[in-house]
């Protein structure tokens, strides 16, 4: 016998509704009588189902009538009934009419707690006690109330040593009072070998009920954290406060031996604290005792342009050095003041002017260069005193007239002519001669330069000596054309060296 269950009937009626709708939907002409029959059948089933939804207002009899009508309309009795099998899996939908709720069971024992109580007491009382060896701490959860509506709940927590001799001041957390519960307070002490929770009652009659929880309460904990962790991972608490295995990432790395390291190129400027105060000894060492400058890339390097010693010369500088130098030039008053801001005429010899300042002379550098390599002494140079024409002109020029004269005698220091301050010409020295062939006439042998010639013919005595021969006293004649002639007796033997002694021969111009 199939038990009629309302929910099962409703479910199957709904299935019938789907079947009818599906059948109608497959019809293209819903005005056909067969379709209209299905529509009306579905309409009735739906209305019956709808009526069952008003269960709050229907009696059981009324509901049963609707259910039976549904069975009829939906043809539920036509459905095959599955046999009842002992091992069949219970359907996921509810079957059978639920029974009445069972009798509520007794209250279960509070986990790990020991109840205590004090009933309607008006005096100080011990509410709970136990040996200190039972636990090292306890929490008493309580409610206190009297018969006048005064009430509060709270918890007292205290801890002690295993011998009970040392006990902490209890901590107490309470609700706000309903009325006034201040006449009853709790203390914890050790007396008579037991830990006691005492109710100190100053007025009224109070009832205390509660539960005591030991700490520790014989719990065994959950053991250590699972030590299994994937290679390279670390445990870290997630947002749900759960230790979670995470592969470390970010700027630093950590090896599976716990070594943290910072990969090359990780640290950037933003990583350095603005107040880090990194000392320069942590930087790469540069060449010692050099001035630090920036290179073309802006990096610090050393400079070879100036030494530290040179740099130290800047010590004490208080203003622009260039300005100071410029001001110095402008105030120069010494010898170079004439050349501070002007150039000199090119290629001139520098001299001092009558004011002692630098100036140029009329002598060109080309003229000055004539002195290059000069080795003459002052005495030698003085020989040219009085010379007013070319020194070549002042030299004795020779006439040969059959006699060759040794010209070295002419260039030597033994013979010379000069003008005197008395406007006379003075001839002094020895003129060494050599006759070259036989006895020769020594008459004219030189010509005085222009300016050194007498204005009238002059006769002077002169002695000629010849080596290997006798001395010859003769006279010399100086003509106005400058020729110097000897007397006709001044023949010298060929090959003999003769010396003509002009000693202080002087004549007027």
């Amino acid at each position, binding site marked *: 016998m199939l038990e009629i269950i309302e929910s099962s009937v409703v479910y199957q009626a709904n299935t019938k509704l789907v079947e009818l709708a599906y059948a109608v939907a497959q019809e293209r002409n819903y005005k056909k009588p067969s379709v209209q029959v299905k529509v009306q059948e579905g309409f009735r089933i739906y209305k019956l189902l709808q009526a069952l939804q008003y269960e709050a207002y229907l009696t059981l009899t009324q509901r049963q009538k609707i259910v039976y009508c549904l069975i009829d309309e939906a043809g539920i009795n036509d459905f095959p009934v599955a046999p009842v099998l002992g091992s069949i899996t219970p359907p996921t939908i509810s079957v059978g009419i639920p029974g009445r709720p069972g009798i509520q069971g007794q209250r279960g024992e509070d986990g790990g707690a020991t109840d205590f109580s004090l009933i309607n007491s008006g005096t100080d009382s011990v509410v709970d006690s136990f040996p200190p060896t039972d636990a090292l701490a306890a929490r008493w959860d309580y409610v206190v109330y009297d018969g006048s509506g005064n009430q509060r709940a709270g918890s007292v927590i205290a801890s002690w040593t295993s011998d009970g001799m040392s006990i902490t001041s209890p901590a107490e957390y309470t609700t706000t009072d309903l009325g006034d519960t201040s006449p009853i307070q709790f203390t914890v002490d050790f007396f008579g070998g037991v830990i006691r929770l005492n109710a100190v009652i100053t007025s009224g009659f109070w009832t205390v009920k509660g539960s005591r929880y030991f700490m520790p309460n014989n719990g065994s904990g959950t053991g250590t954290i699972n030590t299994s962790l*994937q290679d390279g991972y670390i445990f870290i608490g997630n*947002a749900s406060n759960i230790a979670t295995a995470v592969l470390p990432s970010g700027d630093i790395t950590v090896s599976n031996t716990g070594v943290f390291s910072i990969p090359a190129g990780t640290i950037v400027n933003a990583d350095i604290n603005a107040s880090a105060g990194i000392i320069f000894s942590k930087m790469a060492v540069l060449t010692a005792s050099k001035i630090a400058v920036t290179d073309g890339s802006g990096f610090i390097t050393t400079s070879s342009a100036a030494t530290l010693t040179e740099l130290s010369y800047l010590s004490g500088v208080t203003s622009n050095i260039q300005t100071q130098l410029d001001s110095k030039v402008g105030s120069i008053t010494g010898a170079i003041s004439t050349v501070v801001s002007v150039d000199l005429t090119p290629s001139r010899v520098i001299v001092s002017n009558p004011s002692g300042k630098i100036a140029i002379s009329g002598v060109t550098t080309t003229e000055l260069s004539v002195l290059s390599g000069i080795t003459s002494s002052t005495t030698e140079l003085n020989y040219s005193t009085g010379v007013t024409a070319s020194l070549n002109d002042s030299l004795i020029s020779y006439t040969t007239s059959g006699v060759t004269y040794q010209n070295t005698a002419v260039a030597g220091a033994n013979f010379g002519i000069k003008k005197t301050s008395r406007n006379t010409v003075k001839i002094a020295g020895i003129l060494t001669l050599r006759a070259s062939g036989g006895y020769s006439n020594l008459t004219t042998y030189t010509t005085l330069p222009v300016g050194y010639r007498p204005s009238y013919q002059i006769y002077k005595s002169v002695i000629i000596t010849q080596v290997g021969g006798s001395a010859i006293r003769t006279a010399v004649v100086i003509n106005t054309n400058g020729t110097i002639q000897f007397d006709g007796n001044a023949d010298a033997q060929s090959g003999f060296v003769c010396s003509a002694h002009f000693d202080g021969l002087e004549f007027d111009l």
Partner: protein
Amino acid sequence: MYTPILSVGITADRTTATVIDGTVYGGSEPARNLVLVFLTGDKRNADNTIASVLTLTPNDTDPTIVSSWSYDYTSTGDGWVNYFFVIISDIYDSGTTYDIYDAVYDSSTKLVYRSKIDANLGNVLSDTNSWELITDPSSLALNKDQPNESLNISSIVYQRVLTFNSQYGYGNFVSENASGCCGDCGDTEAVATYSLLSLLVNGAIQADYQTLLPQGQVIVERIAGILSTC
């Protein structure tokens, strides 16, 4: 393991449908931000062929965040839809032994891999002899109760016959024909259509409740046809 809970909502103008993940995360299981959640879906014909694939947004690259997805309802409309929903909660751990078909994800890449072997211990995810990359993790939902089911994941193929447009059309039809017809409606034609639509719409709703998907699809198609001509 989680108990996946999905629901489908619709905007008032019936243009956008939203699939909402109502699964309870945390507790004894990892929190939401520690698991990957994947959802795809398709619209089906009555013969169970795919009519269209749903374009869900956001198509987020970080599957640790999203908790709802939307798609254009104007193009899909009423009828049979399948949503493939998968929760991957196991982060790959080289110290854990995995069974064949177990699915894990790489915590750094958020990519999902499935074990190809039993007693899979210490093999890196790049070992193609031991692991295969699952490019569409939601497809793992299709393996539920199959021999190749991934027993360490939570999944569901959430199947619905959506009737939002049908319900609106039915109500609108009644409303339109109720105008000027107060208590004594003599429009037998309208009453007949009303009865027809009543049967079809309630049949479609029941098909949704009882997961009679092909029937539901046929019924809503018929409703759409009637509403388009009435």
